[in-house]
């Protein structure tokens, strides 16, 4: 397990470095005076020169890149103050530390992503299991049909409809908002419930279909048939033998879907007017606030890489063959 972790983590470091280098050189090669942008309107040339020097923009691009990378590892000093170790620089537009802005917004996006993941895994896999259990019956047809219909919805289409039904016209629930789960677990749950369900809907359908088809495949495997033949109950074989095998391809797909999960969170933030990482990305990108944009992207890439490693670790728990190799 440990060698695997070390190998994966060092691979992640290399990828993060490459992504950083690629985006840095692309972003800093755009023909725009960043100091002018950071200074705002009605800025005197002297001020621009001071800012340029403070931000290190007067140096060659390779040196700037070195400073940026060193900042992430060791921290940097800016006129605004010291920027501790994972330093992603200072926002041109606001002058805040990029890391602080990201950490401020991240809990919301994390809640959305993980909450949505839990909802669609529980509902999607559950529905798939039921459909496979009741294969060929009306239940199966209804679930499969519903999954195709629901997967054709979009978050920005379903979101307002749900809001209209539950919030605007009936007042059954409040407008979605984010409260820290540490302050009020109940408020956090109720505030995020609509976004979770809406976001999960479009993923649920896909997982229902997949869970159903892999279950049906597994039920035709020889070891499953043998277990049934020697007299084990249908339910025991279904869950202990077939379900476990059916999880392996599903975990693979989860790994592939992680980045669309993050983008799903971005759309959900916009649909429900929540201020998370996605909104920060769009705001910074439209303002051409390059350090903030780079910071959000690198953070997003890091987040996805870490989730991927966790998903790979999950293989070892599901599939004993992986543990041996």
């Amino acid at each position, binding site marked *: 397990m440990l060698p695997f972790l070390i190998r994966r983590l060092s691979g992640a470091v290399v*990828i993060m470095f*490459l*992504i950083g280098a690629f*985006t840095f050189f*692309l*972003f800093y*090669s*755009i*023909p*725009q005076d960043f100091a002018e942008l950071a200074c705002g309107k009605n800025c005197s040339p002297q001020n621009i020169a001071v800012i340029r020097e403070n931000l290190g923009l007067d140096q060659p691009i390779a040196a700037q890149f070195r400073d940026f990378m060193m900042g992430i590892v060791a921290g940097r000093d800016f006129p605004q103050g010291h920027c501790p170790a994972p330093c992603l620089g200072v926002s041109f537009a606001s002058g805040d530390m990029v890391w602080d802005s990201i950490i401020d917004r991240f809990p919301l996006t994390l809640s959305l992503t993980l909450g949505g993941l839990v909802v669609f895994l529980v509902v999607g896999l559950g529905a798939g299991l039921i459909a496979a259990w009741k294969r060929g019956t009306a239940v199966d047809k209804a679930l499969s049909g519903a999954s*195709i*219909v629901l*997967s*054709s*919805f*979009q978050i*920005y*289409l379903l*979101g*307002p*409809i749900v*809001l*209209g039904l539950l919030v*605007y016209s009936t007042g059954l629930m409040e407008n979605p908002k984010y409260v820290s789960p540490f302050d009020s677990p109940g408020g956090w749950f109720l505030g995020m419930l609509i976004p979770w369900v809406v976001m999960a809907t479009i993923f649920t359908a896909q997982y229902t279909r997949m869970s159903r*088809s892999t279950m049906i495949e597994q039920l035709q495997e020889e070891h499953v048939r043998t277990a049934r033949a020697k007299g084990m109950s249908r339910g025991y074989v279904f869950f202990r033998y077939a379900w476990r095998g059916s999880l392996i391809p599903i975990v693979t797909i989860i790994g592939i879907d992680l*980045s*669309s999960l*993050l*983008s799903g969170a*971005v*759309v959900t933030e*916009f*649909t429900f007017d929540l201020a998370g990482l*996605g909104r920060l*990305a*769009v705001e910074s*990108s*439209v303002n*051409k606030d*390059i350090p903030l*944009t*780079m910071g*959000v*992207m690198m953070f*997003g*890439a890091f*987040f*996805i*890489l870490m989730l991927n490693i966790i998903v790979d670790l999950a293989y070892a728990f599901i599939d004993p063959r992986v543990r041996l190799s």
Partner: protein
Amino acid sequence: MTSPTQAAGTSTDAAMVPESLTEAAREDTSQEGLSPGRLMWLRFRRDRVGVISACAVFAYFAVAALAPVISWLYGKDPYTLYAQDPNYPGLLNDFAMPAAPFGGVSADFWFGVEPNVGRDVFTMLIYGMRTSLFMALAVTLTTVLTGVVIGMVGGYFGGRVDYWLGRVTDFFLSFPNQLFFIAFMPVVTALFVSPKDETPAYLRAVVIILVLWFLGWMAMARLVRSSVLGLREREFVEAAKVSGASPWRIVRKEILPNIVTPILVQSTYMLPSNILTIAFLSFVGVGFVEPTPDWGRMFATAADIYEQDPAFMFFPGVALFVFVLAFNLLGDSVRDAFDPKTGR
């Protein structure tokens, strides 16, 4: 060329390969002269859901292509603010909301009018679909071509070339792509036009295509590479090699006809997903902006004003829902028709 692969797809160039003529003739008698492509077509035609979906998708493309003609017949355009037009008095009420019921639906404005500005929703929608569909076609075409070329080169030549192409593919796959679309859009735009100037709509279109193309070809490249890898060792490729065919000829006449099916199936999944990605960009505000009519931008407006005027969401929403549904069903039917073994 009748190949022994199960993935045998269309009958492209079938009779043009001399060495397989005799084999094709033998196959003809046993299969009553049906080429794999013909068989696929027969299977597809029996699938009623598939045929209906195909008609629906075709209708969307027809409407998109004919948008200027339709709006000319209809007599309106997606840019004019009809609320200021003296010919249509009382279009919006005192709150700048459509006066007529259901979002301002009337004989003049079939799908209603946009709140606040009073533009015609019907023409906005058909022009918006035109933008989305044409953009998505361009993106799909460029990504498929790039993916096929890169996958083909890697799979056919193997060795060091394959290794490095594989690493580059992996690298771009590790980008959380939608986040990067958001970040790249303004930056790439700034490469072409000074940020102080207004960005013209055609340039936005070019940048969207560029960004989506840049981070969109990897899945196709992987698919093509793995298919080519399997085919490279087959006897008919070896035979062509021994008889002195050039790599270009082998790729074109022996390998390509055999991987047309997976490429086509993958493309039918890519097209709707590209439409949704373009809509996503416009929805969050980095894609198309006012006044370019665009599907995604309509949803951004609709979500903003949903509490006051839910009807504005209705027509674009239903249109998108039906389109995605039809495309999903069509994709499944095409896959089933090509490969009848995947029972659902």
